[in-house]
Structures are given as structure tokens and as C-alpha cells.
């Protein structure tokens, strides 16, 4: 069994719900990310995406410089636990039709993200070959 924490990306970029949408857009551009978790008091409270910025801010005629992320974000954020097994996490991605999950620990602190791209050999060179074989076997078994 391979755990999410072994293959996830540990760096978590996030914004605060009080951040203005223009600032969030800058951070997403600089991070090359199409979505960003929203954190308040060390808890995950939402997710903001390109679509939220275009469709819930610009389309509604709101000013991105004064509109807060908390007012346009999506509240339903797909998550998984860091000690969950990889197959189950991939199952969540499929069920929710999302390519990326926010990884939390059991105190609900964000500890990373899990994207399909994390499942590449480049992403986590520290993982031994044997563990990779297990991870892909798990993925393959699940995808059948």
C-alpha cells in the first residue's frame, strides 16, 4: 500500500479569504496554478479557480481589486487525508471529476496537494523504485 503523503506535493500555496481577487489571480499566474486553496485560521475553507475569477467576478461586473476571494470561491473542496491510500485518493478524483485534491491531516490542517502530475517519477525522486512500482500497480488496479 502506498500512502498519499509519500507522493503528494508538500508545498501548499494558498490565499486568505480576505485577499482581493486581483491578488489571487497574480499568485495563480505566478504559481502556474489554475486553482488555489483558501485558508483561514489554519483551516481549509474553500478553493478559488480561473473560472471563479472569470465567471463569478468579472462576469458579474465586480471589481477584482475590491472583491474578496471569500465572496467568489467554491466551498466544496475535494480533499483526501495524508494517510489515506493512493488508490482511494484517485477514486475521489474520479468521483468528483477533479484533477487535484487538497491533502489534509486529521486536525484538518492543509499539508499538501495531490495532482495527477505527482504520480510522475520526476516529482518525487526520493521514492524508491519498488515503492513506485507499488504506486502504479495500485493506480492501475484501481483504474481497471
Amino acid at each position, binding site marked *: 500500500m502506498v500512502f498519499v503523503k509519500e507522493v503528494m506535493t508538500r508545498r501548499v500555496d494558498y490565499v486568505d479569504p480576505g485577499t482581493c*481577487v*486581483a491578488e489571487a*489571480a*497574480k499568485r*495563480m*499566474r505566478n504559481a502556474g496554478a*489554475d486553482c488555489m486553496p483558501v485558508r483561514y485560521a489554519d483551516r481549509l475553507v474553500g478553493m478559488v479557480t*480561473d*473560472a471563479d*475569477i*472569470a*465567471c*463569478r*467576478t*468579472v*462576469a*458579474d*461586473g465586480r471589481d*477584482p*481589486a475590491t472583491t474578496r476571494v471569500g465572496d467568489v470561491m467554491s466551498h466544496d473542496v475535494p480533499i483526501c487525508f495524508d494517510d489515506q491510500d493512493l488508490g482511494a485518493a*484517485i477514486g475521489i*478524483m*474520479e468521483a468528483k*471529476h*477533479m*484533477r487535484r485534491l487538497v491533502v489534509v491531516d486529521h486536525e484538518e490542517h492543509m499539508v499538501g496537494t495531490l495532482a*495527477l*502530475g505527482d*504520480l*510522475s*517519477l*520526476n516529482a518525487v525522486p526520493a521514492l524508491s523504485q519498488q515503492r513506485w512500482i507499488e504506486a*502504479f500497480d495500485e*493506480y*492501475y488496479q484501481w*483504474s481497471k
Partner: protein
Amino acid sequence: MLVKDVMTRQPEWIAPETTLLNAAKTMHDKDIGSLLVGENDRIIGMVTDRDIACRGVAQDLSPAKTPVRKVMSEKIIWCFDDQAIEDAAHLMEGKKVRRLAVMNREKRMVGFLSVDDLAHQTHQLSGEVLDEVTAH
């Protein structure tokens, strides 16, 4: 599975002078993330929700005053509707884009394909991951 089986059909056209505000409204109303930009019955570009976010909002451009011409991509990355979705996924990875325009063999734009359209396909997901692995 082929691109035409999972793509979003009937791409919407807008004029290059359309404001970001109105382009975003069209995306919102039609529940889509990309639009074709046309002038004199010719496609001159493509604009996505990401272009509006990263090239518009992130640059502090006014959505009510900025035309999509300023933020659109002039170079359209496209695929054929009868190509396999694995090929389209490869193209997205190679070009680092999240959306492709889709053309039929008569060279007409017939739709858009997004990463999310692909993420709905279980087998495509496994294809994508396995592709990445074999690439390294």
C-alpha cells in the same frame, strides 16, 4: 475513445473588441471556459477563463474597458475531432495548455476540449499517468 466523444460542441464566437466583462458573461451563461475570437469570418484567436484571470485581472486591466484582443491567444493549439484522446492529452502536456480547439477534417472548428473533459474519462487518466512515466 475519440476527441469528438468527450469534447464540448458548438464553440461560441465573439468579436475581438468584446470586453473582458462581456466575454466572461458569455462563458458564465453558456457554462464554458473558452471562446473563439473571430473577425471578418476568420478565426484570429481564442480566449479562456485563464486568459481573463491571468492576463486581464492579474495585470489590473479593467474588465469593462479591455477588449479580448488584448488577452487572447493568437496561436490556437488544436486537434482533429477524430483523434484519440490520448493524442490530445499528449498535445496538451507538450504545449502546456489546458484547452484545445477541435477541428473536423473539413477544417471547421467544431468544439473545444479541456483537461476537465479528459479527467472525466477513467481510462484517459491512466493513459496520461502512464505516458508521464514512460516519458522519464
